């Protein structure tokens, strides 16, 4: 027996629970999943805050990724409340036990003066360029827009910074700052893939800018052609969302750590030595900082840099891309970062080993006592002032000694 549209609609109305826009508005934020089943062109004109977008034609294919728990409450809406009824029937067939449709749809929601938001709209070129990101439900247009609005600072355009810069630029991170005062040397090209043979002798920040602009014109490169030191670190890192530490000296790593903790900016850290690499993510006050991990630097003979000890070129390549992965996760708010975990990579055995890191309750930079001391304008200082490069960096360095409190650490 053929059924008319009217028959199908009556059947759907008889079985699917409907809720009004006002009832939806009254629900606690995050207690239900709101799914907008309209077409992409309608979604771009505006949608309910916190809703996810799955066009009705993709509901069967995409709902399980968006709502893995079939017992959780799902409310569907469209423009007028009809397409969402039919989509809700589909979800019920798929075993979703708690599905409702919002009557009157987005038109009634908007007409009632309830809050809505317009998504960032990507250009046609951007939709094509980032299509493989847009296809991932966890990234999508909102995630891509977030990346385009993000600012990432690379400390060093060397072995770690080079591969990271390429992939972050390709991913559409809108602003990439690069701190490097060096020029491209022929010996860099074995691993520093952002530079090219015809740029030997050129400033690294300019060389990197050329490669990045050629790869993705959406990216603005901010060149900081200076050495990162205690006097300029706060100015340089200000305004960045995440910092990727790819330097090759302990001095810079400590200076950066101290200022980044004080500024509350996450630092994705990696270091390499011949066939090995170490990687972690320092998220201020959530996990340990660099001084919790390594309270003091080793003597120079125990920690030679790449220019002395050598490094297999792919090792900083691998570690730099793992850093870029951490940066993207922090920017997108996805997954689990390496905060509190140190990942060791052994290229000869092709193994990864994970070690647990903890916050040092006596850390001179990120402990409760250190935070309180900074708040009072009397930051902790390190003992052993003769060891000047490893004094606390950033604003701490500028304070007179007699106005500071010694930290409870050995120097």
């Amino acid at each position, binding site marked *: 027996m053929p059924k008319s549209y009217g028959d199908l609609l009556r059947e759907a109305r008889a079985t699917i629970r409907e809720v009004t826009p006002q009832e939806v508005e009254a629900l606690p934020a995050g207690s239900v999943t709101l799914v907008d089943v309209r077409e992409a062109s309608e979604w771009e004109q505006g949608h309910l805050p916190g809703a996810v977008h799955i066009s009705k034609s993709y509901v069967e294919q995409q709902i399980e990724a968006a709502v893995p728990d079939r017992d959780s409450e799902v409310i569907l809406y469209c423009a007028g409340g009809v397409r969402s009824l039919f989509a809700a029937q589909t979800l019920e067939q798929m075993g979703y036990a708690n599905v409702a449709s919002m009557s009157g749809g987005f038109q009634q929601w908007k007409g009632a003066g309830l809050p809505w938001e317009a998504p960032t709209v990507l250009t046609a070129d951007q939709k094509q360029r980032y299509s493989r990101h847009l296809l991932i439900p966890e990234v999508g247009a909102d995630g891509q827009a977030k990346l385009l609005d993000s600012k990432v600072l690379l400390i060093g355009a060397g072995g770690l910074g080079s591969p990271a810069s390429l992939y972050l630029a390709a991913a559409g991170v809108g602003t990439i700052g690069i701190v490097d005062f060096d020029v491209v040397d022929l010996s860099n090209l074995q691993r520093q893939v952002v530079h090219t043979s015809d740029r030997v002798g050129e400033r690294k920040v300019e060389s990197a800018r050329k490669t990045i602009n050629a790869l993705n014109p959406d990216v603005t490169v901010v060149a900081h052609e200076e050495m990162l030191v205690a006097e300029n670190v706060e100015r340089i890192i200000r305004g960045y969302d995440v910092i990727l530490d790819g330097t090759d000296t*302990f001095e810079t790593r400590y200076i950066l750590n101290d200022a980044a903790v004080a500024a509350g900016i996450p630092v994705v850290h990696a*270091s390499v*030595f011949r066939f090995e690499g170490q990687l972690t993510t320092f998220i201020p006050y959530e996990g340990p900082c660099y001084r919790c991990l390594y309270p003091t630097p080793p003597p120079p003979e125990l*920690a030679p840099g*790449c220019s002395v000890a050598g490094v297999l070129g792919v090792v900083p390549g691998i570690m730099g891309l793992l850093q870029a992965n951490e940066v993207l996760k922090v920017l997108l708010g996805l997954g689990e970062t390496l905060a509190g975990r140190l990942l060791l990579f052994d290229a000869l055995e092709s193994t990864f*080993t994970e070690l647990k890191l903890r916050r040092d309750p006596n850390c001179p930079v990120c402990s409760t006592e250190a935070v309180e001391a900074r708040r009072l304008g009397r930051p902790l200082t390190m003992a052993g002032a003769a060891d000047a490069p490893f004094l606390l960096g950033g604003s701490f360095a500028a304070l007179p000694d007699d106005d500071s409190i010694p930290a409870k650490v050995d120097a």
Partner: protein
Amino acid sequence: MSTVFIPTVLRPNVGGAKRLDLAGDTIRGVVDELVTRHPAIKQQLLTDQGDLNRFVNVYVNGQDVRYLQGLDTPVTPSDEVRLLPAMAGG
């Protein structure tokens, strides 16, 4: 007894070995055995007072001994001990 992983930078002091099976019921015992067999490593691992240098971290099965019982942390034959100095290369 436990398996101790020696980082690249310290290997010249232990004849190039990547891992060593060392006797000892605690980290202190294992370190003593290491230093007895390879005296050249002592200066890099221990302070003049016999404590672990702050720039070398020691992990037992992935846990930092600073947050266990330090040098007194017990070890068993199945335990994996890692010496890990900071590295700066980038």
